[in-house]
């Protein structure tokens, strides 16, 4: 019993923090809400680094992936809380902090789940808090639209997912991933495959994979930047972590040929990469472009997983997340600081904003260049890892040459989407600011500046510290 408590310490600490934050609202200690949330999340982060690995029944598994994903989720939550604390006023504190903590808690549960029940619980926890975050700005029609679209499409995806899960339960009589995998061995491959596919819609939705991506552009465009940074990063880490576990235990290589799984994943990846790149170039809003970037990057991560069971595949996905998360948070924070009117990130509104805040502009350029995969930044190494895994498998086995085509799609997508990122850089730096804008620029809030600096530092460091990839590989495949 006590061992279970040790394993789940981060989740328990976070839950306690969430309750405390909610109470702080009731007790009118609003100004302490962020401090409370931050210190709780930091404790959980510490606990996640120290907590032992192990399983909790057949429901949760803290394996190598979860052991990486938990600190990553909590670290991102700390950054997002720090940024929120200095961007928001105290009145918003308890509610925003509580929603963010709930999102992080959902991500932790999802990332560790080895069973359909906690998976469903985690996904719903992430969805519900995400809906509220996206529709945060009361009175803003676009924020309301974003929240509404998120709810409607998210609800449909959840319903589909639940439908698939109920079929899986009906067929297998079990809800744990291993049990589903064991049943695949016995009989009924076709209904099981169909049920698995339907059940995974919820994950694909969280990952913004084509064809479950269509909500992302509108939601990302309308939601507040910090909400986008939250729903764009934490659920991705969780979804990839659980996807890896589900693939290896529910669809074991011994029963399903890797070629068919990787064919399907590569197809999804190719579609996401190409659709995102081709639609991003017509977008004229910076946050919308970030949405397409999220879709494309989800494609890259799934492409890495398509190269399973090769050892470099999962490490490539993990490194990709490590590169994607700080660059996305950094880019969105920089956009929030650069936008002259809060919440308006259309490219025309951003024109010349880099002249007001040159260093924030430089930070934005670094983050976007990393998202575009330019060396020597983290995004380049991430792309490198995915391509290496895909080519290693695709060149090695002729029946998996579909991976080569998908790798080609990744390259093509990189080249095309560079244009979209350039559009943002062009607006921020190369275009003149509108003449009437003479209001003095307020000083940078120190909390946001620190988070932004951390994101840029991580982007640079992960790009230059080439051994990071090897370290990840070792921790996933000791």
């Amino acid at each position, binding site marked *: 019993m006590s061992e279970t408590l040790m394993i789940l310490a981060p989740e328990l600490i976070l839950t306690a923090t969430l309750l405390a934050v909610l109470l702080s609202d009731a007790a009118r200690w609003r100004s302490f809400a962020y401090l409370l949330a931050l210190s709780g999340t930091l404790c959980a982060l510490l606990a996640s680094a120290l907590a032992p690995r192990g399983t909790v029944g057949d429901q949760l598994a803290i394996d190598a992936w979860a052991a990486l994903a938990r600190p990553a989720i909590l670290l991102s939550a700390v950054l997002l809380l720090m940024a929120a604390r200095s961007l928001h006023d105290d009145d918003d504190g308890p509610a925003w902090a509580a929603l963010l903590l709930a999102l992080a808690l959902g991500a932790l549960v999802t990332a560790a789940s080895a069973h359909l029940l906690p998976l469903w619980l985690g996904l719903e926890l992430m969805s519900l808090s995400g809906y509220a975050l996206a529709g945060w700005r009361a009175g803003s029609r676009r924020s309301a639209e974003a929240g509404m679209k998120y709810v409607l499409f998210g609800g449909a995806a959840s319903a589909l997912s639940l439908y698939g899960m109920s079929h899986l339960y009906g067929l297998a009589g079990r809800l744990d991933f291993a049990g589903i995998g064991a049943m695949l061995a016995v009989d009924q491959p076709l209904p099981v495959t169909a049920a698995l596919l339907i059940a995974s819609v919820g994950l694909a939705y969280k990952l913004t994979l084509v064809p479950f991506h269509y909500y992302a552009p509108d939601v990302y465009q309308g939601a507040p930047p910090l909400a986008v940074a939250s729903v764009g990063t934490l659920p991705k880490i969780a979804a990839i972590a659980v996807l890896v576990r589900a693939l290896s235990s529910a669809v074991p290589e011994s029963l399903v040929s890797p070629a068919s799984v990787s064919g399907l994943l590569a197809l999804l990846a190719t579609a996401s990469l190409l659709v995102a790149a081709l639609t991003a170039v017509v977008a004229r809003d910076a946050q919308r472009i970030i949405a397409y970037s999220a879709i494309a990057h989800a494609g890259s991560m799934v492409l890495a997983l398509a190269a399973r069971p090769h050892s470099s595949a999962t490490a490539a996905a993990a490194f990709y997340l490590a590169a994607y998360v700080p660059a996305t948070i950094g880019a969105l924070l920089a956009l929030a600081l650069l936008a002259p009117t809060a919440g308006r990130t259309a490219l025309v509104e951003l024109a010349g904003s880099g002249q007001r805040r040159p260093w924030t502009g430089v930070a934005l350029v670094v983050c976007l260049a990393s998202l575009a995969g330019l*060396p020597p930044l983290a995004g380049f190494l991430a792309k490198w890892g995915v391509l290496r895994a895909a080519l290693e498998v695709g060149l090695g086995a002729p029946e998996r040459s579909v991976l080569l085509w998908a790798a080609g799609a990744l390259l093509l997508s990189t080249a095309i989407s560079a244009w979209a990122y350039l559009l943002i850089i062009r607006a921020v*730096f190369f275009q003149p600011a509108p003449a009437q804008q003479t209001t003095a620029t307020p000083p940078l809030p120190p909390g946001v500046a620190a988070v932004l600096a951390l994101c840029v530092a991580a982007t640079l460091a992960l790009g230059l510290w080439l051994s990071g*990839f090897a370290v990840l590989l070792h921790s996933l495949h000791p």
Partner: protein
Amino acid sequence: MIGALTWSVLAPLLASVLCLLAGRAARWVALGAMLVPLAVGSAALVSFVRQPGADFRLLESYPWALGAAWTVGVDGIGAALLALTGLVMSIATISAWNEARRPAAYHALVCLLTAAVVTVFTTLDLLVFYIAWEALLLPMLALIGLWGGEQRRYAAIKFFLFTLAGSILMLALVIALWVVQPEATRSFDIRQLAGQWRLWESTSVLGVSLARFGFVAVLLAALVKVPAVPLHTWLPHAHVQAPTAISVILAGILLKLGVYALYRLAWPLFPLQALVFDHWIAVLGVIGILWAAWVALGQQDLKRLVAYASVSHMGFCLLGLAGLTSSGVTGGMVQAITHGLGSPLLFLLVGVVYDRAHHRRIDGFGGLATPMPRFAWALLLASLSGAGLPGLAGFPGEALVLFGSYTAGGWWSWLGALATLSVVLSAAYLLWMLKRVIYGPLRHPEQAAFPDLDAREQAAILPLLLLLLLCGVWPTPLVAALRPACEALITHVTGAP
């Protein structure tokens, strides 16, 4: 102990940080940093002049990760290009000495660019090569896009997208070459990769041999940078919109990257493919030589004229490399170096008149020799060198390439004959430009008050002018330093079948 070549990269890299802190003194920091690659490159070049050889010198190797290693070393060509980089970057820094718009950021970016370029010219590791090759795009984008002329946004983005798209396949190549090697001996060392070329020939990627895919990937990346017609259209825009110092860097250094990638990667790694494609590359080279010269004839803008002249002259590098004769390849590389002296000089001189007249229309000048005699002399010598007049630096490279084509015989002589036509064309557009700009009576009276070259301009122009004369009158040392490496390459390629 960190060696000289690593310092050539580290010095500009550190300087780029220092520049940001130094404020107005940034230009001194930048100039100091540029002198490091200049000194190291010159010393290496002298060593190759004294003891010619095809070996790599100043070798250093430190293991890195992911299979990459920080392995640097220069052969004769690397040494010459390193020295050229140091020289051109120093001159560009001097020419932007009074840059008023955010000078610290400007010099920091130029230093960053220098570090990336020096890395490309000195590294012997394919992954590091690619990283540096791509890393120089962002500083260049910023330099053109922020410090450029009227249409700088269009020019900067066009430059960026062309070069990025050109090199996108190269990333796939770098990884593919890694994964097809036997796991125990995998390496990114270019020398080791060159020894394994049979492996890529026998590996098939989606029905094409990996060698063919790889050759095309490098070729595409290189031809965009050279630039070869029809991939050259980014260059006139970039040149016209870029500030003078950036045009100098673009013409003097960045165009050489393409030739260098062919020399260092395409030919050694895929020798059989080089033999298959060499005719096409030569034809592309000749088309570039003639087409760009023809287009230069019709230019009204001085800078565009010089830009097209640049494209035309770079065509000789392609023709020489493709011919695979000793004098052809050597001539192509000599041309790369001497063009790196002559073309920046022309851009500097265009910048001089632009600073005074604030326009670059050829018909807006006339008789400038009267108020500006020293300028007129410099422009005359630079133009004559561009026209390939014997005794000036433009001559030996072109002459060697043409000799090479004639000695190869067959239809190569026809290509050579066609390329020779460009001597007439380049004399025509350059002399005609001279006639309209500096000779005759002063056509615009307000230009009588133009001051002649000042001390700073002379400091930038004189070193180039002297080297132009030196390489023209006495090209032997340069040729001797470059030839062994070129001959080793030819032996490697022609010995392949």
